[in-house]
Every structure is written in structure tokens, then in C-alpha cells.
């Protein structure tokens, strides 16, 4: 469609963070996603983060029922959804109350004034109307009767009452589209497809969207339109991807690339369920999904499928990982390849199920009885969830071992553009299933110390494996004392050898040494990277080591650490990685810790960096 070229002055911005906030029923996640998709298509780099309540539907208008979606889009690299936002859309008073603290001074607030009535204010626990009492003087407030304007806009479609009101998220979206000079077409296409069977709804939303856009263009209130240029992303095909989607894709692609069936056995749990949902949709790719009766069954089904020769995986979150403990131990003993993705959430116990945390590192590394090591990887960003999961299968198959991937709620729900790799770019799998019975031994080892992956059905290779200690080479049950020690050491050595298949650690900033090295792992990367770049821009002597391989660790770490005067380990827990690094490298380190169900803000990390340097 053709939208008139806007007439108002334009300003160019490098990066903008917008947050849509409203009631759980207001469709904030939907418009947030559409805004993201449009920005991606328009060539921005971006990062997004939804934030929704733990209850499925908290009471309408209440503080507990506020749902938000934040998107940070930029003409330069983006590593986080932004600590604070430039624009806040608040569809009701509760949304304003909950989100205002994250709006920058002088930022734009778009509020639906229709909802700031007695009832709405009371539900949000306001004693006076913030739109009127002068308390918002620090912001550019645009208080608009969005509900009424939406009703008017959709009136021609015949939609009334609740149905009409439901379109107000599209009005707000249209307005924000105008503000940042975005193309309406992708959203119009989406509406056409989504509501193919409900033409009135389609038309109503279309009208609301355009009304919002035209309002921006026409009304006197908003004076400036902003432009965010295309990012200088490397050439190529891109797709927007969230962390859970990326995990699912990584699994499905790894299996396809290896010519294997993907078997995904799992039990729903927030925030990991989406991986199951995504994979269940991929049945035309031959993916087998199995919703087991619990996490124990899920993990055991993975073991069975791996024995059968499938690429087998499971996804879960903390409580589920705890339940998988015993079966993971069996997988270590059986030396069968499989991948377990733990999407960490606030713990311990049920904790904060919809919030993010990096609290399961101990559990992943040490949470099994006996000497029971396995590789652990932690992706750095939503799109890295794809690469890390793919790599987990590579390591699993090469070393015949279960591998844990530590994602978290922040990565899972966040999204960013990912360059779509060409098939040939993806590392190939070199999987050999023995077929020759001559000299076959189930626990003979190759140079990587991996045992053969012999599949049932292969003539002459029938063998039995189990959780009892095994005789080296033959795999027979053995109670021999020296053999037990040999096997424990062999299993440990094999996992240590995985280090040979992972790249040397890179350090951002001065690799030769600096006053401070900030270590992050997994998802803390984004905020730490942003903070590190700001610190460098301020001329501070700091480097950043974003750890991705938690076990084994890159071989060159032992050479890197001595180059830095001080080491600060930033993680969303109470210091788990710091302890592990101190144990391994016997060097005192400081911790920068946050455990609030939220990722670091870059500003918090920057403050931590400055403090550490001051103390130094």
C-alpha cells in the first residue's frame, strides 16, 4: 500500500529501544513481534525481550497482569534489548507504573488516556492521575484517547465493543511505525494471512494500524520523526530468531545434516516448552517428538533412541534438569551421544519460573553422583543457541557423550537476526557405525577415546551395555578395583579431550593484558560486551572474555588469565563460575553478581567495571 510521505522533520538515531506494555490481554507480544519483524526486514540489527506475568491471566488492569515486549533496533551491532527505553507505549496505568522506571529521561511516553480513569488508576494503585499531576514532567508525554480513536477507526467494519477495542494494539503499533518511519507492508501481509478466515477482523486491525500511522503524520502533537539507518550487517540471507526457536532449529538441522532422525523426548516446562512446540511443527522434516510422562522418562527415552542410532535430545529447565540427574549419569556410563538443553530460570526449586537466571551451572557441571563428567556449552545470544546446539551434537557424536547446553530465559525469549548459513557452511558429521564383527569390542576406543556407536540390527554386533561398571574394551560387567579406576580416569580424560575440538578462547579488547579482564559466560555476553565497549570508549584498561565452553574449558585460558591484573567474573547467580575458575586456575577473582530474575543491564556491568578498577 502507499502511505503518504511524511511531512515532518526527521532526525537520525543510531539505536532505539521501544517497549510496548499493556495488560496481558492487550496483545503486546503480538505487536512487539510484528515491530521486530518489520525492523529486521528494514535491515536493522536488533534484540528483543518479552516480559510476561507468571499467571496465565492475572486480573485485567492489575500490576501483576502487565505484559511487555521490548525491542532494541539499531544501525550498529546490538548485544542487548537495551537497559532503558527511548519509547514506552503504556496501554493502561498499570503498564505505566511497572515500566516507567526504565524510560530514559526525555524519552517518549505514549499513553492511552482512556484507561486512566478511576478504576484503572485504582487497579494500578495510583492515588492521582500521573498524566495530570505533573509527575511525568521529565518525559515527552503523548496522552491519547487510543481506545476511542480505535473504535472510530474500526467502526466501518461493524466491529463493536470488546472486539473493536481489541484492535487498539494495532493503533499503537501504527503510531510507533510512523515515529520510526517503518514500512507497513509486512504487517499488512501478516494480517491478510493470519485472518484469512476472519475478513472483518483483518480489516479492523488494518484500519487501526493505519489510523495510528496517519495520526502520527497528521497530529500536531508529535513534532519529529526518527530514522534508524540500516545496520552494516554482513551480506547474506537473514532470519529473525529467538533462543528456543534457534535450539529447535539447531537440533533439526544437525540431524538432517547428519542424515539422522531427530528424536526429541521432553516434558513441558517454562521457559523450555517452546522447543517442543517448534519441533512438533517440523514433522514434515521427519522429526519425532515425544512428550513423555515426566522428565525422567524423557531423558530415558533419549537414551533408548540414542542406542537405536537417532540424534536424540531433550530440553528442560532447572526442576527438570534435577529430575534428569540419574538418567544423565546412565548416559555418561553408556557413553551414548545425546544433547540436553537446560533453559535456566530463577531458582532454586520452582523459584521464578518465567524469569531468567544463570543458576544451573553447578548442577550442569557437578550435579550427578560419582565421577560423572560431561561437556557443557553456553550460547552467548539467541542466534548462538542455533550454533551451540549444532555444535553440541557434533561433540556428542564425536566423543560419544551426553552434552549439556545452558541456555536461559533471557536467550530463550529474546530474539535477534541470524544470518542463515548455507548448507555447505555447516560442518559435516563424520559418523561411523561399525558393521564388521571381526574384533568388535563395544568399549574399545579410538584416538578421541570414543567407543564405537554400534547399532542394534547390525548382524554380529549384538552386545549389552548398562550402568554397572564395565570392563575396559569388552564392556562386560566388571567389579575389578583397578579397572574401575582406569574407567573413571578414561571417562574423565575423554571429556578433557573435547578441548581439542573447541577453538581457543578469544579475548575482546587487549589480549596482551590490561588492568581488568571481565569474564562472562553464556547470555551475560550481551550486557558485558556493551559495557566493555563503553568502558573502552571511556579509555579504561579492560578486556572481555566471553566464555562459551564451560567444560572442558578452552586450553589457552591458563595462559590468558595471568596477563590481567584483576579478573571480574560477571554472572547472573551468586558466583558459580568464579568458584569453578578459582578451583581450576587457583587465582583469586572477583564476582559481579546479580540474581533478580533479569539479565544484567549494561550500565550495571559498567558500574561494576569502574568499581573494580577503582579498587585495583
Amino acid at each position, binding site marked *: 500500500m502507499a502511505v503518504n510521505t511524511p511531512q515532518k522533520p526527521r532526525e537520525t538515531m543510531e539505536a532505539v529501544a521501544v517497549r510496548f506494555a499493556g495488560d496481558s490481554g492487550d496483545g503486546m507480544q503480538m505487536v512487539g513481534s510484528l515491530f521486530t519483524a518489520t525492523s*529486521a*526486514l528494514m535491515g536493522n540489527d536488533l534484540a528483543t525481550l518479552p516480559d510476561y506475568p507468571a499467571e496465565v491471566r492475572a486480573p485485567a488492569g492489575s500490576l501483576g497482569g502487565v505484559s511487555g515486549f521490548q525491542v532494541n533496533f539499531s544501525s550498529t551491532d546490538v548485544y542487548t534489548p537495551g537497559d532503558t527505553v527511548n519509547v514506552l507505549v503504556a496501554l493502561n496505568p498499570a503498564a505505566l507504573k511497572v515500566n516507567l522506571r526504565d524510560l530514559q529521561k526525555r524519552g517518549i511516553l505514549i499513553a492511552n488516556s482512556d484507561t486512566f480513569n478511576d478504576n484503572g488508576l485504582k487497579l494500578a494503585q495510583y492515588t492521582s492521575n500521573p498524566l495530570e499531576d505533573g509527575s511525568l514532567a521529565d518525559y515527552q508525554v503523548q496522552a491519547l484517547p487510543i481506545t476511542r480513536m480505535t473504535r472510530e477507526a474500526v467502526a466501518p467494519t461493524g466491529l463493536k465493543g470488546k472486539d473493536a477495542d481489541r484492535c487498539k494494539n494495532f493503533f499503537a503499533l501504527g503510531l510507533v511505525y510512523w515515529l520510526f518511519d517503518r514500512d507497513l507492508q509486512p504487517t499488512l501481509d501478516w494480517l491478510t494471512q493470519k485472518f484469512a478466515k476472519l475478513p472483518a477482523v483483518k480489516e479492523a486491525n488494518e484500519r487501526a494500524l493505519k489510523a495510528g500511522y496517519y495520526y502520527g503524520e497528521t497530529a500536531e502533537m508529535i513534532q519529529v520523526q526518527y530514522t534508524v539507518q540500516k545496520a552494516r550487517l*554482513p*551480506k*547474506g*540471507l*537473514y*532470519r529473525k*530468531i529467538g533462543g528456543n526457536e534457534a535450539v529447535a*532449529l539447531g537440533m*533439526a538441522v544437525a540431524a*538432517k*545434516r547428519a*542424515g*539422522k*532422525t531427530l*528424536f526429541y*523426548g521432553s516434558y513441558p516446562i517454562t521457559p523450555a516448552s517452546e522447543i517442543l512446540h517448534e519441533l512438533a511443527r*517440523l*514433522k*514434515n*522434516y*521427519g522429526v*519425532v517428538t*515425544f512428550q*513423555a*510422562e*515426566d522428565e525422567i*522418562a*524423557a531423558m*530415558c*527415552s533419549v*537414551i*533408548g533412541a540414542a*542406542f*537405536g542410532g*537417532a540424534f*536424540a535430545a531433550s530440553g528442560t529447565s532447572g526442576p527438570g534438569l534435577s529430575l534428569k540427574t*540419574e*538418567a544423565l549419569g*546412565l548416559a555418561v556410563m553408556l557413553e551414548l551421544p545425546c544433547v540436553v538443553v537446560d533453559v535456566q530460570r530463577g531458582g532454586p526449586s520452582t523459584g521464578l519460573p518465567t524469569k531468567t537466571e544463570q543458576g544451573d551451572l553447578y548442577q550442569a557441571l557437578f550435579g550427578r553422583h560419582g565421577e560423572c563428567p560431561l561437556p557443557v556449552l553456553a550460547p552467548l545470544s539467541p542466534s548462538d543457541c542455533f550454533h551451540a546446539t549444532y555444535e553440541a551434537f557434533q561433540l556428542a557424536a564425536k566423543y560419544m557423550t551426553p552434552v549439556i547446553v545452558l541456555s536461559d530465559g533471557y536467550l530463550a525469549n529474546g530474539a535477534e537476526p541470524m544470518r542463515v*548459513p548455507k*548448507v555447505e557452511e555447516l560442518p559435516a*558429521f563424520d*559418523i*561411523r*557405525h*561399525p*558393521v*564388521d564383527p571381526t574384533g568388535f*569390542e563395544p568399549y574399545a576406543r579410538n584416538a578421541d577415546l570414543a567407543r*564405537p556407536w554400534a*547399532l*542394534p540390527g547390525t548382524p554380529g554386533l*549384538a*552386545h*549389552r*551395555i*548398562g*550402568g554397572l561398571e564395565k570392563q575396559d574394551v569388552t564392556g562386560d560387567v566388571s567389579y575389578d578395583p583397578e579397572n574401575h579406576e582406569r574407567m573413571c580416569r578414561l571417562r574423565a580424560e575423554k571429556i578433557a579431550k573435547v578441548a581439542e575440538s573447541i577453538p581457543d578462547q578469544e579475548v575482546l579488547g587487549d589480549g596482551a593484558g590490561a588492568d581488568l579482564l571481565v569474564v562472562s559466560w553464556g547470555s551475560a555476553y550481551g550486557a558485558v560486551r556493551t559495557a566493555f565497549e563503553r568502558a573502552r570508549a571511556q579509555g579504561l584498561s579492560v578486556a572481555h572474555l566471553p566464555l562459551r565452553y564451560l567444560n572442558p574449558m578452552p586450553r589457552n585460558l591458563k595462559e590468558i588469565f595471568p596477563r590481567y591484573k584483576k579478573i571480574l567474573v560477571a554472572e547472573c547467580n551468586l558466583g558459580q563460575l568464579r568458584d569453578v575458575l578459582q578451583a581450576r586456575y587457583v587465582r583469586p577473582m572477583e564476582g559481579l553478581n546479580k540474581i533478580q530474575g533479569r539479565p544484567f543491564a549494561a550500565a550495571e556491568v559498567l558500574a561494576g567495571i569502574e568499581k573494580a578498577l577503582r579498587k585495583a
Partner: protein
Amino acid sequence: MNSTAVPVNAGPAGKSDTPVRATTYKPGDYASGHDVRWCPWCGDYAVLSQVKKTLSTLGISPDQIVFVSGIGCSSRFPYYMGVYGIHGIHGRALAIATGLKLARRDLSVWVATGDGDCLSIGGNHLIHTLRRNMDLKIIMFNNRIYGLTKGQASPTSVVGQITASTPYGVIEPPFAPLALALGCQATFVARSLDLNPKHLEMVLDRAAVHQGAAFIEVYQTCRIFNDAAFEQLTDRALRDENLLMLEHGKPLRFGKNREKGIRLGANLQPEVVVIGENGVAEKDLLVHDEKAPNPNLAYILSQFHYPQFPEPMGVLRAVEAPTYDALVDKQIKDIQASKGEGDLASLLRGTDAWEVD
């Protein structure tokens, strides 16, 4: 790796149902050659030898068979079979077997499990496996005791039983495992006895050809910790009074001279009657029907316990129903047929990709 490579996708999901080969096999072809380490005279030996016999009649090569087990004396079973095997963890055999069968429909997957393994810690996997009608052959060795851990009570130990964990006697009523299975609408439910090799063979043969979850309870004597458990059912002088040998289509008769029978009384209350006494004739007896679409008769039988009732032996229920693994396979094939089989490039690309240049 001490062997050459095969195509990487050997054995994906979705092969044909039951693999049949033209070769003939002997029971010995299914033995692993490992020393069997059960106690002398343990009832497990009898089951081991019958299983090998049954397998040899199926025309399935040992390479196509997998035995999965949990932990317990009986769960050592896979080690003594010359087939593929997993000796899993306690209670989880069915979950492991489920994953295997879903990934490899071409294999014949059997499960060996104990009353503790299957009904205590593993109870949840049992009920879900039966509900789903997973195509697995499940042999549950019921010795009414924990053998391997030296004699604690199991969920089939009887009230009053003195065990290591109940020095003053068991107080919990035991499961009726077959009733539990029927509570899950199990499609194949049967019972046999270690000491009756012929009967055991018959039941195993029937289970082997059943498509779906086949649940067999085998009364098995633990010589060390529960020697007398099945005396009343095996003692020559007593067994005819205490066993009800089921035959499809035949009236329910038992007793030394098959003079007794089972009749359904008022309130669906079964009764033991004597033919010829009080005007009772054979036509008054319940007639066994393992193929009845409803599991009602099977359920009534599943609750028979001596001395009140003779304990049924044989196939209580055997009905046809789609198996879960076949349905999984079918759903994938249907969707592939309607949507087309997805390829790697389209998977990577997704639906909303854009070009940056």
C-alpha cells in the same frame, strides 16, 4: 574405531513393522554365553530358557532383538541373552525401551523387569506405556520381594509378609498387577508361572506376536528371600484347586477333576460353584473371552486370589488397537505426504527470511 563405516542413517525411524527373516534359529542362538549368576534354582532360569525358545520360533534374528531392563535380579536378564541389550536404571526400562522403539520400529523390543522395578519405582512408566499401547513385550518377574537388595517388601508382597524392611509384617495391600494394567486399558494382559514351562512358552509365544504393549506377569520364586510365595499354586496337591487355566471360548472350570467353575452372581459378584451341585450346569459358567472389546471380564478375573478364587493363568485379554509407534510414524508420513518432505535448505531459511546486501 575398529570397524568400517556404514551409511550414517542406518536404522532411522519408520521402517516396517515386524522384521521377518527366512532363516531358522535355535534357542542357543539367543544366548550370550555369559555365566548366569542367579542363585541356584532361582525361578529366573526357567523364564530365560523359555524366552530363548520362543524367540527361536519367531524367525527374527538375534540382531533384530533388543532386551531392555531396569535394576534387580530379574533385570540382569539382558546380560544372558545373545541379543542387543540395555541394563538400565531402576524402574526406567520402559521409558528407555519407548525411546528405542520410537526411533527404531524395525526392532523387536522386549523388557525384563521385576515387581519392584516395574510396579514400585517404575509404576508411572508402566501405566503410560500401557495407555499408549507401545509395541513392547513386557515380562514382569513377580517374586513378591526385592531380590537384589536382599529381601525388602515389594508392592506385591502380601499382607503380613515378614521381610527385611517389615520385620513386623507388611501392612499395605498389594497391587493386583493385572487389574492395574486393565485400569490402563492394556491390550494384552497375561500371567504365567516359572514352574510351568509349557504354559510359560504358550504365553510368551502369544505375547511375541501381539502388536502393541504385551504385559506378562510371571510368578517367579525367589529361593532365598521368598521361597514359599507360590507354594499354593505349584504344589501338586494344591495347585488344581488354586489355578484357573484360561482358554479362549471355554467355560471357566478348575479343580482336580475340573468339577468346579466360576459363575457371575448378583451384583456382578463372581462365585465358585460345583458343577452338578445345586443344579449348576456348565452353561451357567462364565465363558472366557480374551478378545472381548470391553475389558470387563478380564478385570473381574484379574482380582481373583486364592484361597477365595483360583488365580487365572493364561491370556486374560488380547485385543487389537493401533500402537503408539505406528501412529507416530503415520502422523509423520501423513504430514510429509500433504506438506511435502522438508529439505535442509528450507528448514534453515524458515518462513520470514530477508536478504541483506
